[in-house]
């Protein structure tokens, strides 16, 4: 398991940029506008955000607030309209190396076994899969899936499939893991399970994780910081530090400190007119 642990400080590039070594991703003045026949849509407007190395940061907002677009900008999958995204001080112009990505749909390849799905990024990087089998099995073991290594995705449940997708995202031991509503399609119980497992993995590895969600409790439960976004145009309205002890168990959600954070964010959304106040 020790290979999974990586110290973000010693991993800083060549020691030259010590001043920014605690900032892993810097987003400055980012605009993203989509042009369509019906007119322009401002998906993201004036986004400024520093993501620190080793933090678990959630980007929380209603649908249409551009949170997935923001993630794709960090992943180098979108052209920026204005502003910049820098990773370790270098502008993102193509999908960055040392980055794993997990989507809401698991997008596993049905014709490959679980193990071969996890090894896909190795094949794409033209590395020898033989040398990475151990690592892949170790990751599957971490998610209690080693017995399913030779099975096929269509033989697995939704929660198991998403665990495989996370293993695939982690196979090259990336410093940065981008997760786009990874548990959004799962039932509540499976979602709780995976939240716990993800929290446990972050505890163990302290990877930088950017987690997109529209669930307030999920964001509070997992994160060190929560970025609250609003829509039309997509913008950041608040960045909240979550100072809850770790490791966190599910029953933390019933504690006053936890509910205080949830209420605070809910009130922020209500103030923006995104959520209606009940009577």
């Amino acid at each position: 398991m020790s290979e999974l642990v990586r110290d973000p400080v010693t991993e800083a590039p060549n020691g030259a940029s010590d001043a920014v070594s605690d900032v892993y991703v810097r987003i400055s003045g980012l605009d993203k506008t989509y042009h369509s026949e019906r007119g322009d849509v401002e998906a993201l407007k004036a986004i400024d955000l520093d993501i620190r190395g080793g933090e678990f940061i959630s980007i929380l907002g209603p649908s249409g607030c551009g949170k997935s677009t923001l993630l794709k900008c960090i992943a180098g999958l979108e052209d920026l309209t204005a502003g910049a995204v820098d990773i370790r001080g270098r502008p993102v112009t193509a999908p960055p190396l040392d980055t794993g990505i997990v989507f809401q749909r698991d997008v596993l390849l049905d014709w490959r076994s679980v193990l071969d799905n996890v090894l896909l990024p190795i094949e794409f990087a033209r590395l020898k899969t033989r040398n990475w089998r151990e690592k892949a099995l170790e990751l599957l073991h971490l998610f209690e899936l080693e017995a399913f290594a030779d099975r096929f995705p269509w033989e697995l449940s939704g929660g198991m499939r998403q665990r495989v997708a996370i293993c695939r995202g982690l196979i090259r031991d990336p410093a940065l893991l981008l997760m786009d509503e990874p548990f959004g399609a799962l039932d509540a119980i499976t979602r709780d399970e995976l939240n716990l497992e993800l929290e446990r993995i972050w505890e163990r590895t302290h990877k930088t994780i950017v987690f997109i969600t529209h669930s307030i409790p999920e964001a509070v439960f997992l994160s060190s910081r929560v970025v609250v976004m609003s829509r039309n145009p997509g913008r950041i309205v608040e960045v909240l530090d979550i100072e809850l002890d770790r490791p966190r168990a599910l029953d933390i959600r019933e504690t006053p400190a936890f509910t205080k954070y949830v209420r605070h964010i809910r009130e922020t959304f209500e103030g923006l007119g995104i959520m209606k106040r009940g009577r």
Partner: protein
Amino acid sequence: MGFWSSKKGRVLNVVLVLIGFCLIWEAAVHVFAIKAFLLPPPSKVITDIVSQPLWYGMHTLVTLKETALGFALAVLVGLIMAIGIVFSRFVEQTLYTFLVAMNSIPKVAIAPLFIVWFGAGIEPKIAIAFLIAVFPIVIDTVLGLRSVEPDMLDLARSMRGSAMQTLWKIRFPTALPSMFAGMKVGISFAFIGSIVGEFVASQAGLGFVIDSAQPTFDTTRIFAAILLLAVVGTALFYVIELAERTFIPWHVSRRREGAPAPSH
């Protein structure tokens, strides 16, 4: 699940219906004293095939060879064209339009031209079989290559996949179910194409058997050829279906059989 819905039951069903059909046919010919040159009884048709198996076998093999070669060519060329259409806007706008225009011409109308160009051997039949079969294969392969989920393509890009890697590791396997749908139509079309070619000019093949039997009112021989056509055509279809089951066991429509249902 009774016996009749089991696999054995279904096969037996088909066989019984076929036997019943032949018995009614046989009886009708005798009861109504229908002349053999109008409608021969099935017993006579089968006797004719059994009495000269090598002759019928040779002609069947010729038609089969024309169909198989035309179809194989259609799959190969169809795949290349589909890849071109999916990856190049220019090819899409030119080739695609040309294909649609080509397909709107009844192929029977081109058959005599092919005889002029390629002679009366098996080449023009292969060409016609190819020309008819290639259209559904291209259309369905293009559809399949385009049906990759956007997230899947984002994943490929995030792994810095080359166009070739994305094509062979992701797009092509994703397109297989759709390609097989096109190939099932294509194999039947190729079969029709080779018969059409044989009708226009030939010295061998089941189309030749029918064409040469017609002036002498040898209806028995015509029916024998039709029966063999039905058998070969059905067999070709199931060969593709078998290949489909072998190559794409993950295909949605097959998931119900054997695989455990995913539970959350």
